[in-house]
């Protein structure tokens, strides 16, 4: 769309935001160096491939400028619009683009496998018409496998740091940095897919929080932040148990169930130092007793990863038994007489506080935790270990939010609330807003794993979306993101092909828009056409490539692509051009430069159209050359055979008849015994006659032979005929 530039400065088009519509974000201004001196007459803007915008700036062509060669009269500039801040929310710490592409590549095989399984199951169900219940029961396991594969791409928080010698004073282990993409993915997997662990959901949430606590908030305090701040100060502290942060950190870590950290930190206590053992014996005994209680806390979960503390109870009765015993021990220690003998006030208070947390004292738990999600987890650990069902959890979450309102919301907490409130629309919206198109596209499989409502919501075709479903819409959006980058467009077809309504149409557009300058890229595009059986598209692409190469002087490549496309029309037209050229230089040796092209046409010429003639013509010319040089009877005979073949063949253009015959005149004349028999000579004479008649036709194109050529041919044919008759 052409636009008029303003006169002043370098600005091309003034931009005014929509007035009154709230506060529109200021438009981002990009400066373009086009090198065209103002005044600029016209500006054209169009999309190139991917994020590239082509801006063409033109000057008014003026006659006075005619001689000014230095003046640039226009230029085309490509502007890359990528790299700017995309629509990701602030909680998303910058995953750099290359890393995101790695995730995109890695998730493709898993996605494709899941889709093919889905299709296979659907087919099987359609075939047997029996409700495929056993398969239904297994479906979530397929999704779980998919979820694990994709999850691993998003970073693995469990992976141990590679071979570092750990400082005994390290509180928080430095592993791989957790990402909110991974955190969100795990939440969805936990709640929607993994049916096996459904009974242990509270403990799974506690584990999840341990992995991703650092992501909850950037500004507000979290347990993670408390501990990492304390870690920084730890080196400078002489007597740790005098520092209130030490005890705060301990209670915070205990409240969210980071038992290994608590036990490790308790061992920093001064009473463990050898020189103080004697006078702080009781104190040390109390610290150790608390440490033992912490490390033997019963937890209802199938297993404990190595390095984590607590005693693992698989069944509810086991857990209740262990829990009562353990609570009894905690109570007993709390009421113990040893506390009076403990001289250190802060230790006494701190340890008692830890015991109260273990006894499930709401006040202490609320004080120890910072974020509502931490309070939420502490409730599972110490107050309500048997919380099950979304409703109960949602209720508890609401209570925790009231106790610890957080000013800024993060995508993760919003997502969790959405999940707990069993609102698939909210979950989907949170995924879309916070985690981008890649996440939504892949997470939809998790949402629908075992949720009929979500399944229906995502797959229902909606007229307001142009008849496509929400699932298809998100896949198309993601595919568009992939298409906008020249390295990822090749994986977009997988997603487009999974869109039943509009996918194939968009795929065709995508393929036809790929650059055709580079043969290798064309072949890659054609390979995709082959995979999706888009023969029409591949033929079109070949024709486009053929025209491009032909126009740029690579005639061989042009013909090659036309041949591949079986484009008879264009090959015939090319043949006409070549005839024109060869017709002019028929006796010229420059015929040699066409050799390569003729070689290209090959010997089997079914697809080459009129170019077939050229191939035979080349053979004739070669043979004629040999006959003239060698003057052997064999070569002359061969040449005449080629001549007859050419003259018999309907694809030989009429205008070549006379030049061909003229070329052969000396062969016809030189020999004492004729090379042609009566029938052959008659054929040639007939052709000559036909030619004389055609001369009267208005469309006849004359050739560049001397005027007496016709007569000399006629004469030699006549004499040949005479000799042939005599011979016979």
């Amino acid at each position: 769309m052409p636009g008029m530039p303003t006169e002043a400065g370098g600005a091309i088009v003034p931009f005014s935001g929509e007035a009154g519509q709230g506060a529109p974000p200021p438009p981002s201004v990009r400066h373009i160096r086009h090198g065209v001196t103002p005044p600029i007459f016209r500006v054209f803007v169009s999309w190139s491939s991917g994020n590239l915008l082509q801006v063409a700036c033109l000057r008014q062509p003026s006659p006075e400028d005619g001689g000014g060669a230095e003046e640039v009269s226009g230029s085309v500039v490509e502007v890359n619009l990528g790299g700017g801040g995309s629509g990701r929310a602030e909680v998303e710490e910058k995953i750099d683009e290359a890393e995101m592409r790695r995730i995109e590549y890695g998730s493709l095989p898993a996605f494709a496998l899941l889709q093919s399984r889905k299709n296979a199951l659907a087919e099987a169900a359609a075939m047997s018409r029996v409700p495929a219940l056993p398969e239904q029961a297994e479906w979530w396991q397929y999704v779980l496998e998919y979820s694990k594969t994709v999850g691993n791409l998003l970073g693995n928080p469990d992976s141990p740091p590679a071979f570092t010698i750990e400082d005994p004073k390290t509180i928080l282990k430095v592993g791989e940095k957790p990402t909110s993409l991974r955190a969100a993915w795990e939440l969805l997997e936990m709640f929607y897919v993994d049916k096996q662990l459904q009974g242990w959901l509270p403990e799974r949430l506690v584990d999840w929080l341990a992995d991703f606590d650092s992501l909850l908030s950037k500004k507000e305090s979290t347990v993670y932040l408390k501990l990492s701040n304390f870690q920084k100060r730890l080196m400078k502290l002489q007597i740790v148990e005098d520092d209130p942060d030490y005890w705060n950190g301990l209670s915070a870590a205990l409240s969210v169930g980071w038992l290994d950290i608590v036990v490790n930190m308790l061992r920093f206590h001064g009473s463990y130092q050898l020189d103080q053992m004697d006078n702080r014996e009781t104190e040390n005994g109390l610290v150790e007793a608390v440490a033992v209680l912490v490390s033997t806390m019963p937890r209802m979960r199938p297993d404990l990863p190595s390095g984590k503390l607590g005693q693992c109870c698989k069944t509810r009765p086991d857990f209740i038994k262990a829990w009562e015993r353990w609570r009894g021990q905690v109570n007993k220690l709390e009421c113990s007489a040893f506390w009076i003998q403990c001289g250190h006030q802060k230790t006494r208070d701190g340890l008692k506080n830890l015991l109260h947390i273990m006894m499930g004292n709401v006040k202490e738990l609320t004080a120890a935790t910072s974020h509502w999600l931490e309070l939420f987890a502490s409730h599972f650990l110490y107050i309500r270990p048997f919380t099950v069902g979304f409703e109960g959890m949602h209720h508890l979450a609401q209570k925790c939010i009231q106790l610890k309102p957080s000013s800024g919301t993060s995508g993760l907490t919003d997502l969790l609330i959405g999940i707990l409130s069993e609102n698939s629309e909210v979950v989907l919206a949170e995924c879309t807003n916070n985690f981008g198109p890649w996440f939504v596209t892949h997470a939809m499989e998790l949402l629908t794993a075992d949720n009929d409502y979500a399944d229906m919501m995502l797959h229902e075709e909606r007229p307001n979306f142009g008849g496509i479903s929400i699932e298809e819409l998100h896949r198309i959006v993601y595919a568009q993101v992939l298409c906008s980058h020249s390295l990822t467009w090749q994986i977009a077809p997988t997603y487009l092909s999974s869109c039943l309504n509009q996918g194939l149409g968009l795929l065709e557009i995508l393929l036809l828009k790929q650059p055709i300058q580079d043969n290798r890229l064309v072949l890659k595009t054609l390979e995709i056409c082959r995979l999706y059986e888009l023969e029409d598209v591949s033929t079109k692409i070949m024709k486009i490539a053929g025209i491009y190469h032909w126009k740029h002087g690579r005639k061989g490549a042009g013909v090659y692509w036309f041949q591949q496309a079986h484009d008879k029309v264009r090959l015939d037209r090319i043949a006409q051009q070549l005839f024109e050229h060869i017709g002019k230089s028929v006796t010229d040796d420059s015929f040699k430069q066409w050799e390569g092209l003729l070689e290209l046409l090959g010997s089997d010429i079914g697809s080459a159209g009129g170019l077939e003639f050229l191939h035979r013509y080349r053979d004739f010319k070669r043979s004629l050359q040999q006959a003239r040089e060698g003057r052997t009877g064999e070569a002359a005979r061969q040449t005449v055979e080629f001549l007859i073949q050419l003259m018999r063949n309907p694809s030989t253009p009429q205008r070549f008849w006379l030049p061909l015959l003229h070329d052969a005149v000396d062969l016809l004349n030189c020999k004492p015994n004729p090379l042609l028999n009566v029938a052959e000579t008659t054929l040639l004479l007939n052709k000559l006659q036909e030619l004389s008649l055609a001369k009267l036709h208005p469309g006849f194109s004359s050739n560049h032979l001397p005027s007496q050529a016709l007569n000399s041919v006629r004469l030699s044919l006549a004499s040949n005929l005479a000799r042939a008759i005599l011979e016979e």
Partner: protein
Amino acid sequence: MADNPSFRRHPQPFSIDLVRWLPSSATSPSGRLLAAAVHDPSAASSDIHILSLADPSSPLASLPLPSRATALRCSPSALAAATSSGSLHLAPSSSFDAGAAVAVSGGAGFHVGPVRGLDFGGEEWVTAGEDGRIHVVGGGGDGRVVARRVWDGKGMTGYEAAKWASPAEFATGGAGCGVQWWDRRKGDAAVAQCSGIWGRGLVTGMVHSIDIHPSRKHICVVGGSSGTIFAWDLRWPQQPIPLSGIGLTTAQPLCESEVWEVLFDTYTQSSDILSSTSARLLPVMMCSEDGILAVVEQDERPLELLAESCAINSFDIDPQNPSDVVCALEWESIGILSRGRDAMAEE
């Protein structure tokens, strides 16, 4: 196969177009080295990166190129890269300093457009471009490089591959024109020609890669479109020998897409090594657009080494440790495959 423990992928933040092993010298402090042609579309930059095998994540040296690399080869003394804009760049292997590199720039005097055929013949480099020109590039004696034109196809043919057989002979191949044999002692024109054999009822196809074994200089192995691999023996130029391809051999074709590169595999022992006659072809390794890395042998079932989800655009067998193979994967990563003795025993 995909989870072969001896195969490692190293993700890179840009497209890896080509990879080669660099001849390793005992003095090299960083161990075995790789050269990779990389392209970053967001920065619109193309480079040759020198990587160490131990840690391919960060380049040891980088050589900028004016456009995307289309060919990359090593000689004992230099690393050469040709580009899509028709230029040739030579860097001495003693130092991969960008300043020490010499270049022949693309244009009317050299190549116009991509140069995919590039090889070192012991004395000189040969370049064959899609513009139909063939050049021989050698030292001018004073540190400069001199390019001499052997042939100008004037766009009537376009070349995609070139390979020396001896210091005087080389083979080229291209789109639709099959394979040509050039003998510099017999003038500046091709002395033999083979239009090739192609499957799927195609009359012609595109040649992507040619290899010639130093011990059997009369045989070219050729890889091209439609999964086609054939051998061309100069002694019987009219009868190319099919190795793989749709409808060419009775067996199920190994791949149906483009075969990007072929190399004689010196590591895989021919199955009947004892009774081997000179007529039998040596095993050939290939990589393809549909992600196959495999070894094919005449009249044998192919041995699939890798089946990736993305294209394998380029690969190289380490001449000094032929058990090790490096490949360039479409999804911005370098793959390194080590074929240990155990891996072979399993087969």
